[in-house]
């Protein structure tokens, strides 16, 4: 299953050559993160280019969520830099932490969105309000434009008839698709997913993965933490295997999934064992 992707702005050169010329949207440099005495990320480097789809895999507790939370500034790194589009959002050196000035920060925060494992929709608002409120209130965009875009997004998510529904009236899969629409309505340049299907049944998982795939076809830049190995293999330009707070392997899906790394073997072995059990 080889996919022909041609992300970026009309690059026609070979993929590797294209990537180095493509704009880096996100650079995480030497990131360290501690919880108390427990250093959860050790010197992690990640670069995400425009149009790229990066999957992060690894066993439970390896630091995947922490990495995403540091990248999205939900957590503050204890060392290193987080840089978006060449502008430094946070720098942490020797215990001193510097954030970008307010204006820069606003610009930076505007350029990414996040989809959470448990959706985190606002339960007191209906689907349409969940999607439109932030574009209207935060981005102060035109009402008509925002509503038209929200309805178009809902149609793409297969939820055109649900705009008046409340989150409690939707299935988990529908909630997650609304959450994806809510994030997309802000027109982010880069979208983070933290195990978007882990809270879902297998059938519902499929419908959410389908939506993410359709975004991939539109060259949305995405960073996806997932336990869906087949999905990661199919969709990603690059896979990162994390182990005990470091990036153990990084490369194309083919490279990573066929790597001889014993920890990777063990990790994948457990998956195939689990898969066998499920069937």
């Amino acid at each position, binding site marked *: 299953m080889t996919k022909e992707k041609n992300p970026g702005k009309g690059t026609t050169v070979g993929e590797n050559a294209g990537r180095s010329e493509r704009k880096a949207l996100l650079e995480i440099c030497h990131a360290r993160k501690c919880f108390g005495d427990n250093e959860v990320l050790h010197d992690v480097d990640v670069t995400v280019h425009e149009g790229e789809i990066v999957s992060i895999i690894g066993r439970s507790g390896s630091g995947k969520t922490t990495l995403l939370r540091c990248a999205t500034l939900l957590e503050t790194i204890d060392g290193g830099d987080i840089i978006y589009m060449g502008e430094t959002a946070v720098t942490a050196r020797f215990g001193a932490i510097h954030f970008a000035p307010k204006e820069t920060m*606003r610009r930076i925060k505007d350029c990414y969105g996040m989809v*959470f494992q448990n959706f985190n929709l*606002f339960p007191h608002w209906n689907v349409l309000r969940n999607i439109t409120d932030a574009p209207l*209130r935060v981005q102060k965009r035109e009402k008509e434009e925002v509503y038209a875009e929200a309805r178009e997004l809902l149609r793409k998510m297969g939820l055109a008839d649900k705009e008046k529904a409340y989150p409690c009236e939707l299935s988990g899969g529908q909630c997650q698709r609304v959450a994806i629409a809510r994030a997309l309505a802000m027109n982010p340049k880069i979208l983070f997913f933290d195990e978007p299907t882990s809270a879902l049944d297998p059938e519902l998982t499929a419908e959410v993965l389908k939506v993410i795939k359709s975004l991939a076809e539109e060259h949305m830049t995405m960073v996806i933490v997932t336990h869906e190995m087949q999905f990661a293999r199919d969709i990603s330009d690059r896979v990162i295997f994390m182990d005990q707070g470091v990036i153990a392997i990084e490369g194309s899906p083919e490279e990573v999934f066929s790597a001889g790394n014993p920890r990777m073997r063990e990790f994948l072995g457990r998956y195939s064992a689990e898969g066998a059990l499920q069937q």
Partner: protein
Amino acid sequence: MSLTTIFMQLLSGFGQTCLIFFLVLLFSLPLGWLVYFGRASRFKPLSIFVKVYISIMRGTPLMLQLLMWYFGPFYLWKMNIGGGYKFFAIILGCSVNYAAYFAEIYRSGIEAIPKGQYEAAQMLGYRKAETFFHIIMPQVIKIVLPSVTNEVITLVKDTSLVYSVSYIEMFALAKQIAAAQTTIVPFLVAGAFYYVFNLLVAHGMGRIEKALSYYR
């Protein structure tokens, strides 16, 4: 004295009861939020002060607090207080007392909101105040409504405590009539007033709860 006369006399005092009830509610419900913010403040002296205030309000009888508010200024500072002060002291005393209870109820509601709501809001770029007033507070109000109803019903009954500073409202009138006419009928009528009032309060709050039940 006929039942009708007793009823009419108590009805004239019921206006005062209602006035105290609505004014205290009007002040204590928003004041409760202020108290909550003080308690949740990261400025330690303020949060400690508010915690002590809450524990005194909840740990001592409201009647005693009313006596303190009313007689305190005179005995402590020899202040001469005008006639209007009694009503002011009553509303003040009840409001700051109920605000303490409401603050604790709001706190329990706010603690019931998952952290993910704040994170989703932060990710969408809402400012802190926007997050609180548009996303958190509406959900908190729904969560705390049953507890607030309990307090409101207690407040209806607690208005009778103002007789301790000899303020004339329905309960004080009932006591006067009962003593003068040596009959317990006024108490029964007053009881009926409170009971019916609370039925209406419970019904009203039930309506609001129902209006908010469109989501879980």
